[in-house]
Structures are given as C-alpha cells and as structure tokens.
C-alpha cells in the first residue's frame, strides 16, 4: 500500500510540474555579421588613426520582418555599414510577419528589445504609448515627404522613420490571364468589373483552378470595399464598431455566389493561403490569377515567376480605391544603450546612395526624394511595377486607416473565425452578421 501511495505522490508532484510547463518555442538564429571590427585598427591606420582609437566598439541588435529578398538585401546593407564604420557590428534577427510581434512583445517585456526595430503603423501607437520607443532627434529628415514623415509621429513626437511609400492593390498572373484570352485588368477598374473579370476568367479555366481570392475573411479588403462606397473604415478612429450591415451582407452574398460558381476556391483551399509563400500562396500555385498585395512586395512577387506578374490598382467605388500607406518604419528602443549610433545608422539607411543601391525597393519606394531621383534610372522592372502601382493608386487613394488600440485581434482572429463558418456553409450571412455584432461588443462598440 505504501509503495502505491508513494508512487501516487511522485506522480502528483510530477503532475504539478508538468501542468505548468507549457511548451514554448525558441527560434531565430542570431548570426553576427560584419566581423571587420577586429581588424579596423590595422587597416585604417593610414586614414584616420586618431579617430579609431577613441571609438569604442558598438554592437547593434536589429530586427525586421520580411521575405527572403528583403533579408538578403538588408544583411548586405549591414555588412556595407560595418565596412564604412568598422566599430559598428550588427546582430540581426529576422523572420516573416508571423510571430514577429509575439517575439517583440516578449523581448520588450523583458526589457531586452533590439536596439533598432522595424515597426508597423498598426503597432506604432501602442509601443510609443508604452514608452518602449525613443524619440528620434538626430536623423536627417530633410528630403522626406511631409505626409510620410508625419505617419511616424505620435502626439507630435517622431518615434519612427518611414522607410518607404506603399500602396495596397492587386497582383495578377499576367501569363495565366493572357493564356485564357481575357484582357488583363486595367487601373481604375470598378468592383463590378473585378467580379465580372473573375467570372470571365473562370469560364476559360478547368476544374481545380479559380480566378479570384475568397475575401470573405479579409477584413481589410472588406473595409476598403465599404470605404469605396463612402461608408468609412470598419471601426471609427475612436474605436467604435462601424461595419454597415447592408454593405456587409452584400459583400458576403457576392462571395457566397462566387464560391458556388467556382470563381473563388472552396473553403478548404482558401484557408491554406499564405501570402507570397512559394508553396502556399494560391496565386503562386496557379490556383487563382489575382490577389491583393502591397506595392512594396513587387520584388518578392516577381521572384515567384520572373516577368510573369503584374500589378494593378484595387477595384474602386464612387469614393476611390485602395490606399497609400508608409510601408514600414525604423524605430529605436528606449532601452537601447546606443541610441545615437542607432540613429546614425537609420540616417545612413534612408539618405545614403550606397545604401539605396543595395536595398533598392525591398522596403517600398525609397522615402527620400533625393535618393529616389538617384535611383530612378537604375530600377529593375519589378521595382518599377511597384512604383507604378503607387503612382496609379495616388489619384484615387482613400485615406489610410489602421486598427485602433485593442482592435487588432478582432480582425486578426475573431472576424476570420466567423467568416470561416460562412465559407464552410455552416451559417448564413445573416447569422454571421449576428455573430460579428456580438463579438464586436467584446471589443467595446
């Protein structure tokens, strides 16, 4: 009896330990690049011997999200910077968008955020309000567009420097569309033309191939639709729920019909899509011919199938189409020990022509006017594709909006779950509407 009792105690103790140790996954490999700092004294003796001796070595941690093209270009730029400033080395951390913010928030909580952080408009206000970012005062901003510059300000203080201009539009598979004998979509097309285009293409395609993406669960895409009808963003600036019932039902009924007609993929396929992932992106796989994409992604888009892709503005309503937005920002952590060095790097990153040569448009159209003028003759067709999308969107663009504080999970998770029920035909659009309203109340209507 005692043996069994002992085993029980041992097991109960084990239970307690096991139950609380919930699996956490560490990831991300930090390679230190730019090892040149060690030989600086020897090499630069002839140039500036005095200065080198007074400079202490600086190691900047820098973190960004992006695709492989951006990773490669950024790492090359960091190497270049180390070559020019041998006392500065970098410890880069990079990943895709997935998991980036989980990682950053954990680091920030541990007071261990990287010195230089790539920031997104949706998170900037939150991080600035929590005193995680430092005000940027020593970066040369003379050649930056006023609107873009202001997008990095929170309560009139500059916490983030915009790195590029961006626009949300459509990317299409030119090759596949031309093969089906349908004309490629033109800039300024309307929503009606867009849906009709989908039906026309589908008529020429076989089974297992579709024309458009199912945007039932894409809250941003819906918001742009609602804005183009003059009904505003899905949530007001002060955080009030603002989806218009009739417009929303209209949108969901359109996609319900498109699903039945096979113009958009079935739900089981739609839920697998992962933007620009060569194995999961539905357009890269040849399952659809057109999808929503940002101008800053034009180079990554081109690598899927060089020369075969095109970009065109988002469909428009009476009140415009798509929007222009800053592609992303650099911020400096308030916990950083090297705030001046970090700002020096940002200054170089946005203003230096050598940096621009390496980075091209991997973070959108260069934010500095002088750099853009310098770059224009050297740009690749893929770069120009992105720039053209921005130019074409500009005259019809709607104001850029982002989820106010606290709402990001509504679009990121809850809305999608309800929309999936719709996509799998478990509920009707009317029932889905009830659920959306109910869920929105949790976020404070």
């Amino acid at each position: 009896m005692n043996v069994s009792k002992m085993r029980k105690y041992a097991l109960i103790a084990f239970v307690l330990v096991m139950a609380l140790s919930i699996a956490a996954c560490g990831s991300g490999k930090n390679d230190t690049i730019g090892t040149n700092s060690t030989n600086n004294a020897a090499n630069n003796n002839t140039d500036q011997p005095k200065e080198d001796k007074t400079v202490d070595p600086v190691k900047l941690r820098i973190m960004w999200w992006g695709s492989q093209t951006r990773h490669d270009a950024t790492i090359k730029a960091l190497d270049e910077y180390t070559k020019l400033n041998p006392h500065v080395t970098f410890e880069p951390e990079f990943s895709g968008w997935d998991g980036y913010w989980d990682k950053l928030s954990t680091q920030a909580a541990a007071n261990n955020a990287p010195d230089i952080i790539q920031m997104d408009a949706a998170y900037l206000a939150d991080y600035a309000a929590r005193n995680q970012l430092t005000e940027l005062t020593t970066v040369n901003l003379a050649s930056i567009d006023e609107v873009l510059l202001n997008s990095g300000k929170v309560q009139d203080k500059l916490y983030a420097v915009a790195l590029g201009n961006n626009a949300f539009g459509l990317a299409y598979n030119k090759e596949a569309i031309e093969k089906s004998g349908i004309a490629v979509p033109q800039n300024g097309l309307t929503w009606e033309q867009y849906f009709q285009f989908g039906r026309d293409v589908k008529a020429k395609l076989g089974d297992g191939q579709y024309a458009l993406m199912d945007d039932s669960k894409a809250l941003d895409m819906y918001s742009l639709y609602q804005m183009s009808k003059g009904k505003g963003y899905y949530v007001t600036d002060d955080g009030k729920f603002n989806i218009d019932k009739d417009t929303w039902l209209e949108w969901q009924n359109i996609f319900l019909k498109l699903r039945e007609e096979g113009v958009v993929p079935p739900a089981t396929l739609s839920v697998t899509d992962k933007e620009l992932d060569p194995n999961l992106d539905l357009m890269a796989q040849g399952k659809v011919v057109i999808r929503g994409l940002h101008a800053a992604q034009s180079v990554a888009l081109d690598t899927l199938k060089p020369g075969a892709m095109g970009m065109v503005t988002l469909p428009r309503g009476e009140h415009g189409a798509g929007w222009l937005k800053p592609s992303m920002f650099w911020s400096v952590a308030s916990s950083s020990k090297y705030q001046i060095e970090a700002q020096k790097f940002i200054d170089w990153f946005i203003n230096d022509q050598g940096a621009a040569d390496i980075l091209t448009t991997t973070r959108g159209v260069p934010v500095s006017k002088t750099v853009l003028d310098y770059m224009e003759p050297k740009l690749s067709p893929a770069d120009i594709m992105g720039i053209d999308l921005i130019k074409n969107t500009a005259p019809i663009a709607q104001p850029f909006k982002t989820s106010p504080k606290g709402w990001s999970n509504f679009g990121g998770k809850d809305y999608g779950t309800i929309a999936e029920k719709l996509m799998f035909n478990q509920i009707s659009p009317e029932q889905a509407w009830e659920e959306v309203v109910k869920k929105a109340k949790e976020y404070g209507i």
Partner: protein
Amino acid sequence: MSALNRVRQRQWKSFSLRLRGRWESPVAGYLFISPWLIGFLGLTLYPMIMSLYYAFTNFSLLEAPQWVGWKNYNLILTNDDTFVTSLKVTLLFVVFSVPLKLIFALLVAMLLNKDIKGISAYRLMIYFPSLIGTSIAVAILWKNIFSGDGFINQILEVFGIEGYSWVNDPRTALSTLVVLVVWQFGSSMVIFLTGLKQIPRDYYEASSVDGASKIRQFFSITLPSLSPIILFNLVLQTIGSFQMFTQAFIITKGGPINSTYMYALYLYDRAFGRLQMGYASALAWILLIIIGIATALIFISSRYWVFYENERKGKA
C-alpha cells in the same frame, strides 16, 4: 508499517547522525543537484508563483500589472465563448487521443516483445523515429502529408479517388491531429515494453498448462500485471494531451473555424496575441485545476483496475 518505511527511517537516522558530525555532506549534495535545483527554482517555481500573482492582475507584458481581484476568473467562467469552445475541443482531443495512443503503443510493444530473431533490430527501427522526431519537424511533415495536394492525396489519386483536404476541413482537422498524436507512440511504447518484460514467464507457462488461450492470457495475465504501467502512461499522456500545443499551432493554427483551437493555443493567443498576460495566467491556473481533477479521477478509478504485486502478497 511497511518494509520501505522502516528502511527510510533507518536511512534518515544515519543521515542525521552524520549530519551532526559533517556539515559538508548536505552542501555537497545540494551542489550536485544544483543544475536541476536552479532550473526548478528559476524556470518552474518562480514563473508559477508569478503567474499566480499575474492571474489577479491586468498585466499586459509592457505595462506594470494592476491588481484586479477575481475579475479575470469571473470573465473566463461567465462571459467567454472561446474558453468554452477551446475546452470542448481539448476534452474531445484528450478523450480520443489518449486511449487510442495507449492501445496502439501497447500493441506495438507486444509485437516487439516476441521471441524472434533480430528483434532488437526491429525495436531499433520502430523506436528510432521517436528519437529524431522533434515535434515541430514532425508537425510540418504531417501538414505536408495531409494537405490538399499532399502525399496521401497523391496516392489516392493513383487509385482514382479524389483528394480530400484533411487538415483544412473543420470536420476532419481534429481527427487528423489525433492520428498524428497516436502515431507518436514511441515513449509510451518503450515503457510498455519494459513493463511486459517484467511479467514473469511462469505465469504464462502455468496458464498454458491449464489450457488458457492467448486471448485469455492477455486479459487475465498481461493486462492486470501491466496495470500499474498503464496507469503511469495514462496519467502522463492525459496531462500531455491537455497541454497539446505544438501540432495544433504548426498544422492548423486552431482553425478551420476553431475546430482545433486547443486550450493551450487559446491561452497563447490571449497572452501573446492580445497581450493579456493576466487573463492568460488565470486560464493557465484553470487548466491546472482541470488537469488536477482529471488526474484525481484517474487515480480514484485506479483502485478498481490497478493491481500491484506486493498488494497481493501483503494480503495473503
């Protein structure tokens, strides 16, 4: 009371005698276990205590926590649909995956307990994947096997059967995860195998003289003799299954339509997606209580189906 207790008392006496004379010995002992001790204090005990505290705050990771009393627990238990959904999914998963996995592990263990030539080679081959199979790599592999144009569907296509989106259909996604977890039977299997080896052969020989069939032997000898091991595996797997995270996170992200939205995944989303550490901590403690209850139920039930050899001897 029992022999073991007397032995322990004796050990303790001699230990405390030595203690008076030589104070170094406990220091040396603690030094030897210090790697574990530091890990336990820093990575288990401290986080547990902090999470108990955070569960009563509105801690958001980036701002200092503020005391909110029972508010988190109140919200979870009275006004959280997703909590109910994820709990349902998790219970469903536990109820199906644990017994299936144990049955499968036992079957394989029995096969590997046969007296045939080269059995150690077979054992090695079957257990080997468990050694290299880190959970994330296996999960990604599984995703590729069961996805729309994955391995399974390509084979089906050869036979003219139309492919099926196993992990992307809310009706089959959870079952696919159950199959994956059942397939990861390695550790339970090894424990069963050791248990099987400890059953004295005399029992089988005696019973076959009495004319017992193989099936009768299995139910009357193997299962009862193995019952303490089954209990051990059952408890271990139940606890593990309640905390199921990796596979669901990698393969389905909880979707489609939350059909694989495990409790731990929901907890993670609250903690790192919505930065509600306080709320997530409360969820974790509720999970602890649920696991505690489930384990207690298993132990209570074990009185009726677990047999210990020394028990019988003691009664005799």
